[in-house]
């Protein structure tokens, strides 16, 4: 793969309810990314936007934000899925040789929709929707399946919530940042057994953007590049009953392909940090295993060991992760942005030591059906 770099980053803060419109959020994030790169929209050859018609309550959800993304007179397309998949498409467009730079921008306003209904619409309309199944109740089934496989307990899940909400205190963009105890998590309101309120990510509003550039394209910018070393994506089966919900084989395949591309042999040793899509606390433990940071069934032991703490050997979600802000679609892009900030050494209070190589991860579909894994390096 030819070399493509991330050279500009922009995020809005993530909040429960923002007054700004979709256009204003996109404009804020895109402008911030261009400004971070040290250029303006004239330096951008093409654009990939990321949005979802259900979350926006608009058909052709990208239509509302074309001008805010700076599309006038430029080639532009829209990915409907997590922001990591948007960056992947932006990368392909540069690798094709047609463009030297891509702006990728994602937005969502969770506050304008009803999460339960929007995620209920992911499920089979004939047999499943009427049961009321949604992102959280399906995740609860997965958490149970994972507990059965691994022996992990609700207390183990709580350790993830405690770590990530504490890490978020160092992240000015995070929405839910606080010191909590395992007892607080266990005592929080039950949402869908075994998940409690503090096991679940919040509903969030926000936008994020990155600027990608080829080696030639980099000459237009002032920033030092962070390179994309490896990337892969993969989807598991859709029907929950067709999947082994406790074993994230699509993540395993994506990770192994991305590692091979990036020359990573032992991820726990070769990666300096990981920003992963912990929409629910238990997911972080499962993704440890899918990413090869822990053996199958070893996620709980890894969180308990403290090695994924911000000062540990392989810090995971030093930003506070998705548990601390969950702008759907934007969240994976935020993982990439956080990984780049760490490699740049610009992560402020959440900076980990010696961050040279980082992993960023996004998911699509119910219970992490599809995964996209990026390896980024200085």
């Amino acid at each position, binding site marked *: *793969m*030819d070399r493509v770099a991330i050279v500009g980053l922009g995020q809005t803060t993530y909040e429960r309810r923002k007054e700004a419109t979709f*256009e204003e959020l996109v404009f804020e994030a895109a402008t911030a990314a261009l400004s971070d790169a040290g250029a303006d929209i004239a330096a951008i050859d093409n654009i990939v936007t990321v949005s*979802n*018609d*259900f979350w926006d*309550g*608009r*058909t*052709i959800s*990208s*239509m*509302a*934000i*074309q*001008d805010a993304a700076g*599309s*006038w*007179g*430029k*080639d*532009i*397309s*829209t*990915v*409907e*899925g997590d922001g990591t*998949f948007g960056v*992947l*498409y932006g*990368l*392909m*467009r540069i*690798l*094709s*040789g*047609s463009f030297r730079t891509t702006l990728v921008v994602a937005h969502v306003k969770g506050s304008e929709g009803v999460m339960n209904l*929007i*995620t209920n*619409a*992911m499920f*089979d*309309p004939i047999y499943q929707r009427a049961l009321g199944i949604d992102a959280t109740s399906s995740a609860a089934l997965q958490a149970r399946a994972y507990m059965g496989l691994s022996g992990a307990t609700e207390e183990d899940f709580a350790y993830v919530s405690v770590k990530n909400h504490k890490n978020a205190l160092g992240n000015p963009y995070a929405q839910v940042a606080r010191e909590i105890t395992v007892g607080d998590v266990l005592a929080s309101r039950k949402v869908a057994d075994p998940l409690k309120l503090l096991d679940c990510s919040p509903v969030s509003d926000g936008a994020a953007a990155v600027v990608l550039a080829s080696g030639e394209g980099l000459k237009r910018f002032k920033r030092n590049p962070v390179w994309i070393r490896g990337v*892969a*994506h*993969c*989807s*598991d*089966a*859709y*029907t929950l009953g*067709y999947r082994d919900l406790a074993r994230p*084989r*699509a993540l395993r*395949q994506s990770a192994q392909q991305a590692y091979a591309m990036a020359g990573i042999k032992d991820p726990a040793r070769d990666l300096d940090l990981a920003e992963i899509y912990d929409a629910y606390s238990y997911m972080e433990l499962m993704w440890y295993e899918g990413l090869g940071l822990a053996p199958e069934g070893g996620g709980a032991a890894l969180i308990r060991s403290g090695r994924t703490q911000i000062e540990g050997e392989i810090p995971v979600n030093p930003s506070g992760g998705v548990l601390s802000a969950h702008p759907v679609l934007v969240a994976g892009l935020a993982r990439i942005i956080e990984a780049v900030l760490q490699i740049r050494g610009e992560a402020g209070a959440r900076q980990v030591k010696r961050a040279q190589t980082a992993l960023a991860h996004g998911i*699509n*579909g*119910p219970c992490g*059906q*599809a995964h996209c894994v990026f390896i980024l390096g200085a």
Partner: protein
Amino acid sequence: MGKRVAVVAFGQTYQKSSRKDVNGVELINEAVRACLADAEMSIRDIGAIVIGNMDHFEGINYVDMWSVEGSGGVMKPILKVTTGGTTGTTVAMCAYYHVASGLFDRVLAIGWEKNSESDTTGAIITAFSPFWERPNVGGAIAGLAVEASKYMHNFGVTERDGARIAARERIHALNNPYAQIHENWMQGMDVNTIVDLIVTSEQNQMLAYPLRMSDMCPRTDGAAAAIFASEDVAERIAPVPAWVAGTANRHNYVYLGDIDWDHNDTLEGASRAVFEKAGIREPLKEISVCELYLPYSYAGLKWMESIGFCGPGEGPKLAWDGVTDMGGELPVNPSGGVMSSNPIGATGLIRVGEAALQIMGRAGARQVNRKVEYALTTGFGGCGWADVMLLGRARPS
């Protein structure tokens, strides 16, 4: 630098107003199987999948995830792209970039829609600003009616000119077994007589002046799939691959009220970019056949000017002179086009697939009577948006 890319296989369902015998996943599966059979390939040979539709027509969120058991995406890389009416061409472009990037050699592009499950115009209206445009002009028809009125005013164009395009598209569709609309009464009839009948028919309901039922595309249940392959494998899959000579799009607008109706500047911009890349100087002479996303009749007049096939106001002459008929200098839409079948998320991909068949010489009764060097395809959607993909017989330099 990137890889050269060709379309090597195409499959589609028979386009129908309603397919109650299948659900969406089964419909997708029909097109995928047809395409794989066309390529003499198995789903195991496919490296990645790109899929697109418009969510609110079927009410399914995360369609790429929901459909993997029909699309063949289980344990494969799959990506969803969607841009409204341009979705089908957007899918084609995305598959092109997948292969051109060098990351994948064989990519399956899928577009589909089951419009019978939707209130199509009701859904499209929500694409527009809830404050400024939904109450007055939003939806599929109103903006086009404004465009047609302005075009008629500027150049003295008549309803007969519009009907001439409607007649052409429906006459061509008679050669296409996959088309939804087969106006069998037009078979063998003089085109002037057809036009007279269209414009005088009392049953031809006015929708928004000057657009009548006959001027508009239908809504369709259907799916299409194409395989895009790299230069390393294309010629092993298809004896005559349809090479992508260039592709570009322009999606400039958010508000219909911002559009300069005297021009179609998105189609102009995207066409210019593609012609420049492919070295096309005289489109009318160099392009052998077109599969254009013409959602309504007057687009077949005005947008020919935007692409550069003729000068401003000359679209009607091109049509009446028969230039764009099957035997003419530049046959447009041998398939019958969008006005004969419109499964929205698939519509643009069908243009690309039909153009590829023309280059391959495999279009059956709708095959044009010459060797096709270049076939031009377009997509239309969103708020006056345009996608353009040019396919060619020659491997790009």
